[in-house]
């Protein structure tokens, strides 16, 4: 697949990294900053072109004429939309994905599409990150909560702790514990290493467990892994940027939200846009301020400023002062790994959250959704199977008969409105949505091939 990425910012660079390490992709990155491009080209096997992303001359130099996917990720919504429009008008580029942050654009029905602005898919990293954090707050104790099949199925990452009824028991006893709720453990990570989940596998204290379940059953399963925590009520957000503001407005309906912003003017702007949130002007790393605002009784403290170092420090401080659970927004993958084992409960990596929505478009076969996990080492996919028993390698077969690559679990099947948790005797039918978990991303191609078989016959 030939891909052009416009903009070598945080998201653009991560996208280039993830896309270019897949053998099948040819990636070209366009940016105005030559230094960044040179550095990028030194580390990745990609081509770089210096210039403005919406300029036809630059796009031509990047090889737009034969490009399959244009991904516009510059920090300007307008440049992104224009670039997509230029690409479609002049070169008929088949797929155009734009990063559009402003809700003003994305909320309008009928702005994008045929004979309109030629953006096929828009993504808003801020929106995705906000939703991600909101889900984490809704499920206290979860490290990761990811949606599949329009939210009917969720993949939850959770750290098993002493006190959960299942901890110390074999996996197969899960059904006896909760007969009403079906779930499938997709992966277990013990001390950073993947352990194959089988019926006889023992769940240990400290394991990172990923399980799939219908949305309504999630809480019941989580209760098995660790003592149930009370739902979060008091939330403190540090940083009134794009993400902080969106999160506050989403949470303020049900929770008691405080937002700390350092810049006076920005704090004022934010307070004008929010209704029930208490907006505070001050430094989130100011001990006095935190104590004054009763940090010790806060359920969730989320540090979401632009500076990851400040996020780490203020989150650590909040934790020490008694905040129940702290989260920090962290861009560098290496930092995220460092701190999740320390005093910060959840590290949120905006790129990992965003990259999945891009990967879904470059996958062959009908892939609806991709979530990148564990800094890109693992992946969860939602695939739709088409065809019939003859043309497809999966349709009409029982799950135990499907030759899945190593480290791959088929966790759930969504058939119409029903969620079926996969068991060895479940039979796959046409147009099923299958949810797969790959502990090793390198097997992605094998998985693509397995499920694509049908598509090529159609």
């Amino acid at each position: 697949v030939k891909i052009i990425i416009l903009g070598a910012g945080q998201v653009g660079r991560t996208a280039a990294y993830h896309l270019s390490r897949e053998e099948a992709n040819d990636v070209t990155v366009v940016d105005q900053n030559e230094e960044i491009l040179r550095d990028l080209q030194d580390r990745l096997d990609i081509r770089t072109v210096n210039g403005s992303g919406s300029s036809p001359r630059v796009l031509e130099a990047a090889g737009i004429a034969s490009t399959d996917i244009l991904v516009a990720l510059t920090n300007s919504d307008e440049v992104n939309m224009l670039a997509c429009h230029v690409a479609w008008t002049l070169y008929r580029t088949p797929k155009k994905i734009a990063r559009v942050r402003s809700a003003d654009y994305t909320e309008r029905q009928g702005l994008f599409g045929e004979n309109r602005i030629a953006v096929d898919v828009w993504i808003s990293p801020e929106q995705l990150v906000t939703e991600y954090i909101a889900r984490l707050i809704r499920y206290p104790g979860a490290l990761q909560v990811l949606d599949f099949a329009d939210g009917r199925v969720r993949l939850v990452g959770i750290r098993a702790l002493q006190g959960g009824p299942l901890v110390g028991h074999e996996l197969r006893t899960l059904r006896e514990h909760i007969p009403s709720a079906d779930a499938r453990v997709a992966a277990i990570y013990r001390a950073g290493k993947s352990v194959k989940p089988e019926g006889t596998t023992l769940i240990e204290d400290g394991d990172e467990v990923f399980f799939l379940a219908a949305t309504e059953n999630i809480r019941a399963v989580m209760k098995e892994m660790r003592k149930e925590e009370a739902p979060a009520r008091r939330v403190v957000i540090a940083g009134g940027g794009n993400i902080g503001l969106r999160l506050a407005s989403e949470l303020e309906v049900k929770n008691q939200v405080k937002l700390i912003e350092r810049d006076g003017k920005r704090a004022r702007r934010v307070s004008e846009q929010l209704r029930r949130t208490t907006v505070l002007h001050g430094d989130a790393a100011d001990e006095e301020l935190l104590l004054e605002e009763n940090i010790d009784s806060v359920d969730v403290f989320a540090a979401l400023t632009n500076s990851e170092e400040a996020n780490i420090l203020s989150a650590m401080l909040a934790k020490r002062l008694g905040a129940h659970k702290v989260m920090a927004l962290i861009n560098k993958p290496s930092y995220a790994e460092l701190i999740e084992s320390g005093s910060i409960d959840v590290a949120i990596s905006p790129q990992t959250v965003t990259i999945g929505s891009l990967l879904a478009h470059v996958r062959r076969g009908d892939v609806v959704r991709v979530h990148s996990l564990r800094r890109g080492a693992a992946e969860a996919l939602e695939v739709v199977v088409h065809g019939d028993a003859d043309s497809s390698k999966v349709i009409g077969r029982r799950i135990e008969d499907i030759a899945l690559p190593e480290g791959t679990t088929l966790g759930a099947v969504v058939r119409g409105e029903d969620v079926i948790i996969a068991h060895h005797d479940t039979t796959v039918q046409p147009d099923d949505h299958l949810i797969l978990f790959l502990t090793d991303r390198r097997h992605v191609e094998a998985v693509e091939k397995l499920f694509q078989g049908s598509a090529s016959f159609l």
Partner: protein
Amino acid sequence: VKDILLPVAHVFALVMMVFAATMLAPLVMAVWELDPALSSFVISAFATFFLGALLWLGTRRFRRELKTRDGLMLVALTWVALPAVAGFPLWNFLPINFTEAYFEAASGLTTTGGTVLSGLEYLPRSINLWRHLLSWLGGMGIIVLAVAILPMLGVGGMQIYRAEMPGPMKDTKLTPRIGQTAKLLWTVYAGLTVACMVCLKFAGMDWFDAVCHGFSALALGGFSTYDASIGHFNSIPIEMVLTLFSVLAALNFGTHYVAWSERGLMAYLRDAEAKAIVSVLIVSCIGMALFLYLKGNYPDFSTSLRHTIFNLVSVATDSGLHTQDYSRWPIFAPMWMMFLSCIVCSSGSTGGGIKMIRTLVLAKQAHRELNQLVHPNMVRPLKVGGTVIANRVVFAVLAFVFLYFMSIVTLVFLQLASGLDFMTAFSSVIACINNAGPGLGLVGPGSNYGVLSNFQTWVCSAAMLLGRLEVFTILVLFTPTLWRK
């Protein structure tokens, strides 16, 4: 040192095993001709392969992804070590010592074309094929070839590519993937080579000579199967074909690819280097033909023009094939040709020297400095062919040219100290560092490098490697920081 060298050696072992495969070509030739060099090639091919395999197995524990400095190291190691391997069959079969065999193989791989052998027409055909094949392999770059056919070198491939491909600006790739770019370049190169071979056959060579000289021409190598080089044929069509393909090989192969994919010649007009090269060559040829005619070297202007065009283009593009002993021309003429050999070739070509793009950058920079003296407040970016050249590149070019000239000076002094006369010392170093081939004086077109002592031959070998890898890649081996953890 162990941690730095062994992972590189692991990849080098792979290169060696692939290289062993290229020895099959002369081996098959030797079987076909039943010539006496057969055993030498059989021994060499097996020895190279097994040494490579042993090294590969022995260093397997140290396998890891290559970093920037590993890339540099791999290229440098390959180029320093491979002539020894490639020279083995020559050393084994011919009455020459190791120094001379190394020189001959290095001269081939670096596309220099200077030889220590005489009586070339009496050598077994397999030996001659091997010499020319070495030129051809080295022309586009052994590592670039390895990148094209061994996908696992793709990681960190850009550094490797940079270290081996000539020219100051190598950030623009033809395709996003380095492996594909390498494949494309090799395809264009191979395509032109075949075209040249067919043309030579039609111009009157037999197939064996056409193949050998086709390798030589496109690699700008300069090896011939005759002591008298192209003078042996005394044929105008052959000279025309070789001149045409030498000029093509002196242009950027990226430009050839673009021209091919556009099915038009516009790409050459957009290439500032190509335009400059062709203009310099045309003006020089006409001027020097006139000069030689007026000096009375040739009875009429057309003969003068014929010999000037072939020999001047050949030396200027660093090929080194010749039809006349131009060292007997008035000293202005060969010196001008030597000068052109320093500057004429394009970046991304198979030729040597400091490359036309660097010359253009330096000329424009000089022009800018002069203007700056008149208008101290003037703001003027440095442009070549309409594109702005970053100051970073200008500095890199200046540093390169400085190192290039310092290398020449150092090596010339070494040659002088060893007792050579000035003309031979100077011209041998210039001809070797530019990968041009024959020099003047004792090593002129009428003679060869066999007259040099062992020490002097090693100096020439060093000059060839320095020139082929554009100085930096070799000199970086001597920087202490490379070897520190």
